[in-house]
């Protein structure tokens, strides 16, 4: 029962977040970039719901604006990683031979790095910025997609219906798309959802250490970063941006767990 409530809250929160991301321009009460030194470091008020930062910018508007960047990176990076990783993983499992060995070894190599470290490495190579950040996060998530899709596809590859499809003259790519992918989609959907949470966290972390979104553009990560630098002026920006990150990641994780329970065929329906 408690599970249900959590899931409901998470879904509601994520829907709300989607509205904020899409219609942000109409919802933000103030211009998130407008500086006003007359109202520096203020607490919450009817004008500034979550107070202002040390440039006198509205924290609420900045968090809403920051959600766009964080969510874009958080959604796009895992999706790119999923497309590349699943393509490589299923093809490797299906065709086997030396391409599979190369892909598996590369994956093992990449898995030995922490995603954060890989992200830092890529940004260090390409330079900071939103596009490079997305590339870095995608790159960091690809190996786990390869690994999961390859393992699942290997199991499905053994199924008689795959042989039957080949025996009916179906070409390889079509066998993968119509017979292999639909049968491994469950765990992959769950993993994508869980990695969205991780991607948001990674974006925040990399922005926090200055490798992500560059000021003045707000993202949750750099709101926390500059908020912490000015924590004695006003703790509110760092606090609320941190809260936004926490709630979003938590919601995606709860959603992922719920999906896993739903899609797991071994679990009896309650």
């Amino acid at each position, binding site marked *: 029962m408690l599970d249900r409530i959590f899931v409901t809250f998470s879904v509601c929160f994520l829907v709300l977040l989607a509205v904020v991301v899409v219609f942000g321009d109409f919802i933000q009460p103030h211009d998130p970039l407008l500086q006003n030194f007359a109202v520096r470091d203020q607490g919450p008020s009817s004008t500034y719901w979550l107070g202002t930062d040390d440039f006198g910018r509205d924290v609420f508007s900045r968090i809403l604006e920051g959600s766009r960047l964080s969510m874009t990176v958080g959604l796009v990076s895992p999706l790119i990683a999923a497309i590349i990783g699943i393509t490589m993983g299923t093809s490797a499992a299906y065709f*086997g*031979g030396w391409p599979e060995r190369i892909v598996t070894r590369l994956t093992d190599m990449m898995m030995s790095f922490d995603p954060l470290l890989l992200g830092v490495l890529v940004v260090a190579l390409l330079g900071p910025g939103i596009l490079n950040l997305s590339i870095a996060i995608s790159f960091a998530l690809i190996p786990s997609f390869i690994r999961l899709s390859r393992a699942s596809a290997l199991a499905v590859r053994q*199924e*008689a*219906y795959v*042989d*039957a*499809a*080949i*025996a*009916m*003259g*179906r*070409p*390889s790519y079509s066998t993968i798309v*119509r*017979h292999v992918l*639909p*049968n491994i989609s469950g765990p992959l959907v769950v993993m994508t959802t869980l990695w969205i949470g991780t991607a948001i966290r990674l974006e925040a972390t990399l922005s926090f250490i200055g490798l992500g979104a560059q000021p003045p553009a707000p993202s949750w990560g750099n709101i926390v970063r500059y908020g912490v630098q000015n924590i004695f002026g006003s703790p509110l920006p760092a606090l609320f941006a941190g809260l936004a990150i926490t709630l979003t990641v938590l919601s995606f994780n709860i959603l992922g767990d719920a999906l896993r329970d739903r899609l797991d065929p071994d679990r009896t329906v309650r």
Partner: protein
Amino acid sequence: MSEPILTIRDLKVAFGPEKVSMEALRGVDITVRRGECLGVVGESGSGKSLTALAAMRLLPSAARITGGSVLFKDQDMTSLSRKGLEQLRGNEMSMIFQEPMTALNPVMRVGDQIAAPLRKHKGLSAKAARARTIEQLDSVGIPDPHRRIDNFPHEMSGGMRQRVMIAMALACEPKLLIADEPTTALDVTIQAQILDLLRAKQKEMDLAIIIITHDFGVVAEIADRVNVMYGGRVVEEAGVGALFDHTLHPYSIGLLNATPTIEMEQQRRLPAIGGAVPHISEMPSGCAFHPRCPERRPTCDRLVPNLETVALDQRVACWARSTADEQVA
């Protein structure tokens, strides 16, 4: 006699890398003629399924063809390109499998699975393929095909799924159907129905069938000719009548004796062939059956016997049945 449709000559298949490879098929000769049903019999591990997979070029990646040829009409399957194979499979030759439970994709409607080869090979539109699929389901005896076409496999019984498999395999009117133990996973009454269906299709479409089984009942029911396999070779080849009335190879005799019959005494133990099928890594020298053979001779562990014609429709590979003198051999 009609012309051969599939000729397997001296087919060799090995597992593992070149240097340590183990031969699982050691020179298989099988011929199937247009419109005839050939039974391939043998214990597990005799190489009968592997022969079928090799003929369709569906071998697992660990196995490879190391010699011989598989001629379908006049095309050599062993050297055909992937494109060529895709053109042939499901169109001119197709295959049904042992487990109707797993041979259909669980997340795809059965109609779509039957329509797929029709659309690929016959270039039918989605609509035409659907109409053809309904006819096809009807022709394999599935009641209410208009409704059943949109079923998922789990909504059907085992017998029905095997009918769907047959409908799919025969959708493009192939000339050859390879059936790998098509009735093993089904209960006896359904077995008989599926065999009846296969036989009806054979007559109706002038279809050649290779039926792989370890059940002599199935062979007696449906086959015109029989190949008995042991240790990766064909040891006896005979018309179905000759095989039952005039069994020659000691292995075939052993297999037939080990088949339970309805007339046998209840308390009597079923005779068995002593020993077990040799693993491919320790294949005996000479005739592979000699360690288990009750009629073993001195030659048997030294030389491999070849198939010799002993009667009009019977060939056997056994030194104890050889007309050639042992000294000559």
